[in-house]
């Protein structure tokens, strides 16, 4: 793995620092990638290509006044130096018209860090050949993304932080027909043929189970097992809308409002944290603060702490814990329980086994009442055995039921789930989630 981007960023900001005026402070963040993408449908290629990008974002500060900007680096130092100088000139001009920002806060105690995950990923041609080989005779659809990604922070006070990894992410389905498919994900830093084969085997067995005639279930309340991927869809909805954010908390917009305004609780089985140490996201944020290894958010069903960005720290007079501006978890973890993962079907006994949920949103956000669909492999189970796939169902239920009164247990293994999102750039978010056995989940359509 090359350190050229690391060196380039360092030198660019070091040079820019020498051109600052007066007491100016410069904060700089870079995110970059060189990623090979292969998109597949019916085991053939729909699109394939390579994206190379390096986005530099800066905040130019003088006292409590500041303005920000960003642009794509070209990799040519003379061009990038000139563009950065031009941008800083524009920010200085705009800064004349802004007042002091009472919520400006940045790290003034330089703490430099470096984390590099030098993975072993196959050449893209080989990856394509491997994937198409296992998909031979099958309707394989999905995307393979692989390559270097990096994030860096630097400021004119001398702080330098760098996070770089080489990783791959194969997100795919074996389709049977219509909307019936076995969904799987193989992601990591080192491509392992045996591990990939095990994933394929699991998908093949699930595909076979889907071949049984699907059934329609009437709306109603069903005993349900939510696999980790289904839990992810549910939990990320809630956390994405400010469940754990200080600003959402203070302005009464958190979906967990009833926990802070009405003493509502989740099940004592539920403990949720921002587990930076166990995730794959950088341990620094855009104002230079270093994140603690873990931040407890929900402890045994009760609200514990919020994620506090630097701006919220200033606004609400509390310390920051290194949250990003959005104040959502980037490495969310739910502590496992004592339900044996290997025997969840027996524990479910008779009910719904939900592998994936889809398109979750709120029916009543402030009551944390959520809705969404089952997707891919959802099965009806009787006496611990799969009876039939189930056609898609809409659920509509509150977190206080699903993770509260109705929660019977969490599995004893939490699955590490890397975020497959590639909006703008490859995500570094992840989650560690167990499966959940719910005594009664409400389905409405």
């Amino acid at each position, binding site marked *: 793995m090359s350190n050229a981007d690391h060196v380039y960023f360092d030198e660019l900001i070091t040079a820019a620092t020498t051109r600052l005026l007066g007491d100016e402070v410069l904060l700089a963040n870079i995110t970059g990638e060189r990623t090979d993408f292969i998109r597949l449908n019916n085991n053939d290629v729909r*699109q394939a290509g390579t994206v*190379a990008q390096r986005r530099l974002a800066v905040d130019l500060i003088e006292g409590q006044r500041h303005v920000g900007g960003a*642009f794509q680096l070209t990799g040519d130092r003379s061009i990038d130096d000139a563009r950065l100088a031009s941008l800083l000139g524009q920010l200085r001009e705009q800064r004349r018209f802004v007042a002091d920002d009472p919520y400006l806060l940045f790290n003034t105690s330089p703490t430099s860090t470096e984390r590099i995950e030098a993975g072993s990923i196959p050449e893209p041609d080989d990856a394509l050949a491997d994937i198409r080989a296992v998909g031979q005779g099958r309707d394989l659809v999905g995307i393979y993304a692989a390559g270097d990604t990096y994030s860096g922070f630097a400021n004119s006070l001398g702080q330098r932080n760098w996070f770089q990894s080489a990783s791959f992410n194969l997100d795919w*389905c074996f389709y049977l027909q219509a909307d019936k498919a076995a969904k799987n994900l193989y992601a990591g830093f080192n491509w392992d043929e045996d591990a990939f084969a095990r994933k394929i085997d699991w998908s093949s067995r699930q595909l076979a189970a889907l071949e049984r005639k699907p059934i329609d279930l009437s709306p109603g309340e069903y005993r349900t097992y939510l696999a980790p991927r289904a839990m992810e869809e549910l939990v990320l909805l809630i956390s994405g809308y400010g469940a754990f954010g200080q600003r959402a908390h203070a302005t009464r917009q958190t979906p967990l*409002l009833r926990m802070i305004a009405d003493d509502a609780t989740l099940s004592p089985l539920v403990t949720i944290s921002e587990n930076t140490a166990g995730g794959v996201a950088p341990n620094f944020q855009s104002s230079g603060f270093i994140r603690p290894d873990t931040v407890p958010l929900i402890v045994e069903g009760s609200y514990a702490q919020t994620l506090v960005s630097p701006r919220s720290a200033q606004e609400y007079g509390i310390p920051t814990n290194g949250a990003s501006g959005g104040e959502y978890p980037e490495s969310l973890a739910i502590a496992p329980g004592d339900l044996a993962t290997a025997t969840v079907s027996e524990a479910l006994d008779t009910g719904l086994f939900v592998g994936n949920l889809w398109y979750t*949103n709120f*029916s009543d956000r402030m009551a944390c009442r959520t809705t969404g669909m089952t*997707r891919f492999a959802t099965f009806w189970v009787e006496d611990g055995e799969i009876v039939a796939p189930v056609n898609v169902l*809409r659920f509509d239920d509150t977190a206080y039921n699903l993770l509260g009164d109705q929660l019977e247990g969490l599995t004893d293994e939490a699955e590490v789930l890397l975020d497959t999102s*590639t909006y703008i750039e490859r995500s570094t978010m992840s989650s560690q989630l167990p499966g959940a056995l719910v005594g009664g989940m409400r389905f409405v359509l």
Partner: protein
Amino acid sequence: MTDLLIESRELEDVLRQALPTDVDYASARMVDERSEHLSVRQNKLEPIFNDFDTGVMISIWNDGGLGYAATADLSADGLAAAVTQARHWASVTAGATVATTPPSEHATGTYISPVEVDWDTLPLTDRLDLLQQQSRLLGIDDRIVDWRASLVRRDVDQLLVTSGGARIEQRFRFVYPGLRATANEGTNTQIRTFGANAFCGQGGAELLGRHGFGDAASRVAEQALELLSAPNCPTETMDLLLAPDQMVLQIHESIGHPLELDRILGDERNYAGTSFVTPEMFGSFQYGSELLNVTFDPTVPGQLASYGFDDDGTPAVRQHLIENGILVRGLGGDVSQARSGLPGVANSRASGWNRPPIDRMANLNVEPGESSVEELISSIENGVYLHTNNSWSIDDSRNKFQFSCEYGQRIENGEITGTVRNPSYRGISRTFWRNLAGVADANSFTVMGTPNCGKGELNQMVGTGHASPACLFAAVEVFGGEE
């Protein structure tokens, strides 16, 4: 950073010279974006942010293979490296692709957003003063616990050149205004916005007046407070009147996405999903009642997704997708039309220089009917009139949906009798539009858009346009929030 790259003859020459001539098809698509983000929260200016994003995508089709490479290095060497990379992908994928026919058009033309009042004639201080003024109109009561006024200006210049001689220059000027007031009492929090960001479009500063941005803040704040004391929306099957700023979402999710040919072809099955629409439905399927007329119309002046050409270079024209309730055409560009043999439109679009084009909605509009909104209301014995989407969920075949709105009005015996909070409704796309019982006339026809439509692997976020009058649906399952 104010020089317009699209006016650089030197860059255009470099792009042209980079394209190989010994392949079936090659294109270079340069995208140069500049945006300014302004926001005032609780009467305090938030940090101004200026974003610049520039790069080129090289696409090559050859011998049944295809490949792309995206780079921000616009030098001759940088583009040459991208061409080599794209050519390699085309070689590796030859004989192993689902799409073998490259875009067929090699047109020449220009599109420029209509701008009446150039933003640059409105000084930054005036823009900030406008937002401060709106912010003060939002924060009118102690129960308003959070509020924000925002304005994003985004300029996007695109230049597409192809090995077949195409030269397409498009200059887009977008404006995204926003208002938001959050009211709270105890465990009851109500959020009201300026059309859930749907009052966006193309143009200059005049766009703010088009939707009454300057007059909306007081109404937004007052309705947020009004919702605090409003009763919960009733739960029963009743008539449903949707305002244009909810029709945006209804059209988008239950007509737009199901008609995308790449979903029907299966490309999206691992992510965005498939469609309940199948190829044999085109030309005969009764999608809605006879009142339903839906157009793909990239020619509406100032609408968010108006353009002259899609990102494969196909000239864009207005076409009916649904005519008198019958499905006649899908949403698929040149490549998807060749793959499926189905009729489509010019809607192959990319979110930026670093993403390849796929089938997207552009402007997807419900054409006006003949009733006034007042006539529709007076025809309702028992119903609700819902405004402004705040929650959306639909299955992966785009069939079973559930949507919620910020603000509801109860209609009883032909009259609006009060406000209701937390209104939602659910239905099934395949049959929902057949219950379309009334379409309001051009007086309520409102041109809007959705700034953030996500789709695709790799993921892409684009703006889509939707225009509609208020529409009435019979016998819909309506319900409220938790008590």
